């Protein structure tokens, strides 16, 4: 059986990859995908804990997170499309008229 720590380290690495993606990629859609990666890293943590603690709460939480993430996808993609319609770009560096 794979020990708990392995899962935690894996999910930690996934989380950091997600964070790095958010910080370095310029395409809004890819940034968004990186955020999804972060959420799924968290889901993995929940599942691992749930199994380790022998408690069902974590799994329920994961279902909730997935539902919320789905809703976020809907809103997020809609926003990105709306931005693309007006500015014809999804490069976040070009989206900065609001500053200072």
């Amino acid at each position, binding site marked *: 059986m794979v020990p708990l720590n392995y899962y935690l380290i894996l999910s930690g690495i996934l989380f950091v990859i997600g964070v790095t993606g*958010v910080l370095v990629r310029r395409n809004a859609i890819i940034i968004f995908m990186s955020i999804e990666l972060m959420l799924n890293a968290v889901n993995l943590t929940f599942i691992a804990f749930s199994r380790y603690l022998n408690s069902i709460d974590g799994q329920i939480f994961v279902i909730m997170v997935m539902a919320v993430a789905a809703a976020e996808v809907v809103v997020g993609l809609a926003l990105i499309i709306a931005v693309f319609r007006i500015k014809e770009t999804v490069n976040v*560096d070009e989206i*900065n*008229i609001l*500053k200072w």
Partner: protein
Amino acid sequence: MTYLWLIPVFTLIGVVLNGLLGKKFGDKFVSWVGPGAVGLSFLISCIFLFKLVFDSPTGDSYIQKLFVWIAAGNLVVEAGLILDHLSVVMIMVVTGVGFVIHVYSVGYMHKDPGYARYFTYLNLFIFSMLILVMADSFLLMFVGWEGVGLCSYLLIGFWYEDKKNADAGKKAFIVNRIGDFGFLIGLFFIFIEFASLDFESVFSMASSRQIGDPVIVAITLLLFIGAVGKSAQIPLYVWLPDAMQGPTPVSALIHAATMVTAGVYMIVRCHVLYLLAPLTMSIVAVVGVVTAVYSASIGTVQNDIKRVLAYSTISQIGYMFLAVGVGAFTAGMFHLMTHAFFKGLLFLGAGSVIHSLSGEMDMRFMGGLKKYIPITFWTFLIAVLAITGIPGFSGFFSKDEILWNAFDKGNPILWVIGVFTAGLTAFYMFRLFYLTFLGESRFQSEKELHIHESPKIMTIPLIILGFFSLFGGYIGVSHSLGGENHFKKFMEPVFRNSEIIANSTSNAENSLGLEYLLMIISIIIVLIVLIIVHQIYLKRPDIASTLAKRFSLAYRVLLNKYYIDEIYHTFIVNPFIKISDIFWKIFDVKIVDGAVNGTANVIQSAGDKLRKVQTGYVQEYALSLILGAVIIIGYFIFR
């Protein structure tokens, strides 16, 4: 008595309605709301007066605690209202005379562009004044005290487009600040000494102190400084003559009938403290009588009708201070009340005169107005007879009471000065009356066409006040004149606890013959003055100018008000400006300004730099977020 708040609340509603909606709904709305609010307050006050007279034979006072206002540490201040035989007199005067003057204002301020603003301020004034007189603690009283000061400032400078008016308002405000400063320090002393600002507890704690306790003397003196500022006594009286720049009904209400007498009320309210400080009492009496004679003498030569009345007001308040200074609190309050009637009437009458002459205020261009404005004439006559102390009119009873008390409880010298002042009063009042209403008309001819009696809305208030000036004195006819002196009896409960001290200061035994003698002397003096004035200003108008030439020095000194404004300017304001100038150039500009501007600049440039951090790039925002989180976690792990 859980409905005491009803008395002031209507005026506050009036403020809100006039202030917010007055402009939108027009003058008619304002004309109903403004006086209506005060009228309702007056009616409710009447109910409370009856309740107090009939339901409370023992003369208890009613206190209603409204809410805990401030509770921080050991300072707990409850806002509460008090209704007793003292405050009810003030409430009746404020709402009653206030209502009449509100009605008068409807006519006087007709078509003024700031009509709604005017009534907003006026209602706010009544509200603040009611808070002042109904407060059950020093702090709430101070709130009202500041409130009336603010309203006075706003109303003096009501026509602020003219710089002179705005300056007069500023002067009043600044001079009053000096007095308020003393008052405030007095409050601190009280709080330090008694750990409370509540009247009831302060007075009950104070009454166990010894007579002449230095702390009490200091407190009373500081409070008296406040009273001097608010009630325009020497040396802080200079603002009141300038305050006449405001609309005339304002002068009548604020600068004659109510606000300026707040100092007298305050001393009477704190009589427990004052009776413990004989030193302060004698200072009050001396300041009062000196102010009385001093400003009466200035009044004799002024030519502006409102200025004469202003100096007269200062002088009459001096009488009131004389009364309270010798311990005759009832007499002081009695004169306060009658004075509110006849001085309010004098101002309103003067307003009517000015109104009929389209704004002329110089008496040298008046005269012979009797036939043009009869109602104003007759009511004005009543007021003049009242203020000069002709027997049978209200002023006679109250002034006589003060003079007798000054002789009896105080000092014969006080009486002599008082009677001399009465002579001066008679002189300037009759002079004003003759110059305005009798003799030849001296106004510029084009003005003659417009002369007209004021509308009913202005003359009816005159008649009402005339009635009270005539008969208002009969509630306080002294025993020596065969009266009952209901007023004194009514006020007795207020002084119940301090009776013993009050009586001990009386030194002469009540000899009826002496009292009559003194009374007759003052009447004779007044009558002699009347004859002199009649001779000078009606029969031989040239005498006045001859006299002025003959005693040109005295005349000029008086005309220029003893050069007090100039003296203040040379010896106080100018050196102050010079010193401040030096301070300003060295200290302020170099050090303080440098520091302040430096700090401001540092903050400003820091802001300019910091805002650049906000680059608008969403990923940098995310980075800052992560860095924040990582630093906190790192700190937590490695601490």
